[in-house]
């Protein structure tokens, strides 16, 4: 294996694994400080995530959300844009999905409802990203500032709509009425039952397939089409892209709309797949989690699926941990996530120089002859 290859492997595989292990090691110290046996905690966490069918279902269900937002961040990132508005785009995507369902006749079949809700989520998510994209491309407002502001706008808008417009008649809770059952994304346990297998019930629904399709589509789009080429060229070197006849303004708009649309699909998993109504704050944490997932997954769909699974595991296992151990609150999940983000994102290159020096040295060092003065 030559040096180039070794460096690629260090970057792609070894570094993320080491970073995650470091994060876990620090988490263990935190557990130890609050008088919890880290090994016992790890066992409960892993059992909660993978030990029984319902747990696995939850883990994959959470993973699905992270795949959507991870892909969303990655597409924007390849265009050189840092989309931190995944939260808002997911939230507004939910509005789109809900409106699409409520606008259709409840007696129609699922074959119409599900595509309609997906299109609604895609469109509204894209729309919520389009405005910051336009402001970045044509007015020079920084995308990080505008997308984060749009998260707040989305939250306020949804509170207003949920309280005043979409609330179910006669209810105090700010949530819409239930979607017609035809509009529900089928649960995996129902589908399995139909095929003669019996699985414990869990929120896991067919949106996970949609997420995998999206991952393949993103890979294909970015690396196998001329539009993906234009996006990546702009992200790596926008001057060269302009020289090559690529129009960065258009690339910004296209990349952000795709990014927003992907984030919007979180609502398909959460609302159309599980809650079956418009609710408040279903999106919380997934937009930002997507940033960490994309970072850890090196902005590549395969990496993103793996990273999303890690985050899904932490979500589900952490919940189990909080339930099982009296000394642990659910916030420990946030701590663990924070540490993973810290080591995978902020301290990304901590081990890199050392790894490259030890595993892919430039040349053998022969001590130089001579006398120092």
């Amino acid at each position, binding site marked *: 294996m030559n040096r180039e290859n070794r460096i690629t492997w260090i970057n792609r595989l070894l570094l993320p694994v080491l970073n995650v292990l470091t994060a876990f090691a620090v988490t263990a110290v935190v557990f130890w400080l609050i008088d919890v046996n880290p090994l016992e905690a790890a066992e409960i966490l892993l059992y909660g995530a993978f030990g029984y069918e319902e747990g696995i279902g939850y883990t994959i269900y959470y993973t699905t959300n992270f795949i959507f937002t991870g892909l969303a961040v990655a597409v924007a990132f390849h265009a050189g844009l840092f989309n931190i508005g995944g939260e808002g785009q997911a939230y507004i995507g939910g509005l789109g999905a809900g409106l699409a369902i409520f606008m259709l006749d409840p007696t129609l079949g699922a074959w119409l409802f599900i595509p309609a809700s997906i299109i609604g989520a895609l469109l509204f998510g894209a729309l919520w990203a389009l405005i910051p994209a336009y402001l970045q491309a044509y007015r020079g407002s920084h995308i990080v500032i505008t997308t984060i502001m749009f998260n707040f706008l989305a939250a306020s808008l949804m509170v207003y709509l949920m309280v005043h417009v979409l609330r179910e008649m006669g209810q105090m809770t700010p949530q819409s009425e239930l979607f017609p059952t035809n509009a529900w994304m089928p649960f995996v346990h129902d589908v399995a039952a139909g095929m003669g297998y019996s699985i414990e019930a869990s929120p896991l629904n067919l949106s996970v397939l949609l997420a995998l399709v999206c991952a393949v589509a993103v890979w294909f789009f970015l690396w196998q089409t001329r539009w993906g080429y234009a996006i990546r060229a702009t992200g790596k*070197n926008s001057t060269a892209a302009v020289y*090559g006849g690529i129009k960065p303004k258009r690339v910004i708009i296209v990349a952000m709309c795709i990014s927003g649309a992907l984030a919007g699909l979180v609502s398909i998993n959460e609302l159309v797949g599980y809650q079956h109504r418009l609710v408040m704050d279903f999106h919380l944490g997934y937009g930002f989690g997507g940033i960490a997932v994309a970072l850890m997954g090196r902005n590549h769909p395969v990496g993103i699926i793996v990273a999303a699974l890690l985050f899904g595991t932490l979500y589900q296992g952490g919940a189990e941990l909080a339930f099982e151990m009296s000394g642990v609150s659910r916030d420990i999940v946030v701590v663990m996530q924070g540490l993973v983000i810290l080591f995978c994102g902020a301290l990304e290159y901590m081990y890199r120089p050392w790894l490259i020096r030890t595993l892919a040295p430039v040349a053998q060092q022969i001590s130089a*002859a001579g006398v120092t003065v």
Partner: protein
Amino acid sequence: MTMKKFAIELTDIDKRFGAVHANNKVCLQVTEGNIHGIIGENGAGKSTLMSILYGFYQADAGQINVLGNTYIFTDSHHAIAAGIGMVHQHFMLVENFTVLENVILGSEGGALLADGLAAARKELTRLGEEYGLKVNLDATIDTLSVGLQQRVEILKALYKGAKILILDEPTGVLTPQETEELFRIFAALKQQGVTIMLITHKLREIMSITDQVSVMRGGQMVAHRNTCDTDREELAELMVGRKVLLHVDKGPANVRAPLMTVKRLTVADNQGVERLKGVSFELRAGEVLGVAGVSGNGQTELLEALSGITPLTSGSVQVLGMEMDAKHPLSPDILRELGLAHVPEDRHRMGLITEFSASESALLGYHTDASINSGLWLSKAKVDANCEQLMQAFDVRPADPHLKSANFSGGNQQKLILAREMERNPEVLLIGQPTRGVDIGAIEFIHQRIIAMRDAGKAVLLVSVELEEIMSVSDRIIVLCDGAISGRINAEDADERTLGMMMANALDPIDPLQAMNDAKSSSNRTAQELDL
């Protein structure tokens, strides 16, 4: 005759980077008080050797003697302490600091600046007088010309006590007049006993200023010569390892109809400063039009405006049957489709995407082309085949389409870009600094390809800061100074002195009558149209 001491004595310096043997038992002796030239192609190991001497790299084996003492440098501070000063090709100056502040950077002498500044001012005044290095110490760097900035770099080195100066391609950015001035400074430094090592690929400079010259090839020292005992042909042959044609072999131009007509082209930058001021010229099929000038006088803006990258502020450009002006811009992709290709000046900033593989960089500008797309997707086979074909046509090494663009040498990156732009047979070729940082052997090849395009009836606009290149490749030459055309001349009438004067805009304003006659005789245009 007394035995002269050696300022620098390198013995059996060896350095490997993985499989690359960058320096193979290199020996070098530089006599104190001499000007010593080091020449060699890119990748010959010059930069590695100098980096070892300056403490950036450590040699795997070998010995470094400086002024009679043996050292192991692990840091450039050690080299500076031993009396070595380096002037890099790209200046290391803080633009909005004054000369004085720049010189004391790194040796401020205490928490408060006042004392250090006063002491430095005294010392610099002394140095300036002793060596004839006059610079206004209170001017900020960005107000100084490139030549003066270089002088500041030299002062900086001397201020830190350098007895040995290493200069890496010092004349690349200078006008001929500034170069002469620099050589006068070298002479003064030499007289004061300073040793100078000059790294360059310009054989003419080696011949005119050095006392000795050492030639490197493939990581080895292949020859040491007293400059008076050698000539350019021998040095070129030693560098490349075979006979090299230093002059471009070309027949007379068969000039036909104009393919590009530029009228009163004006381009302003973001701040509204006019970088091009009413430039008018014609580019005709079957000719190479050279654009000479000190870099930064509007060449970049000219290339970017003509290729559709920067919008025109006023004026118009007719090209291949279309016209663009401020209100009707043509984008780079449309121009490319019309048959206008562009080899940009800066290959890293614009010519390729260093993080992409060679095959992906070889698509830049052509990624929408039907020849590599099959329906929705970019056909991987066609993308690779396209790159392989380009690599073969221009002998790009290594011929590996999957290698990252950044991992090719500068010359091979340039050949890949040239291949991409030339192999699709454009009608008009804009080409900026085609041989910057390219080996002598490859230069010969690139020049031949440009002439071949001309002979095939294409129009070539050649922008270069290398006067020799401009004079030998072009048929006609225009000179840009401060964004305006300060001279027009036929290549056979041009010499370095005249061009140098034009570049500094030191000639009398162009005689309008003469220009009118020129214009009439060439294509029956009136002087008003040319806006003179």
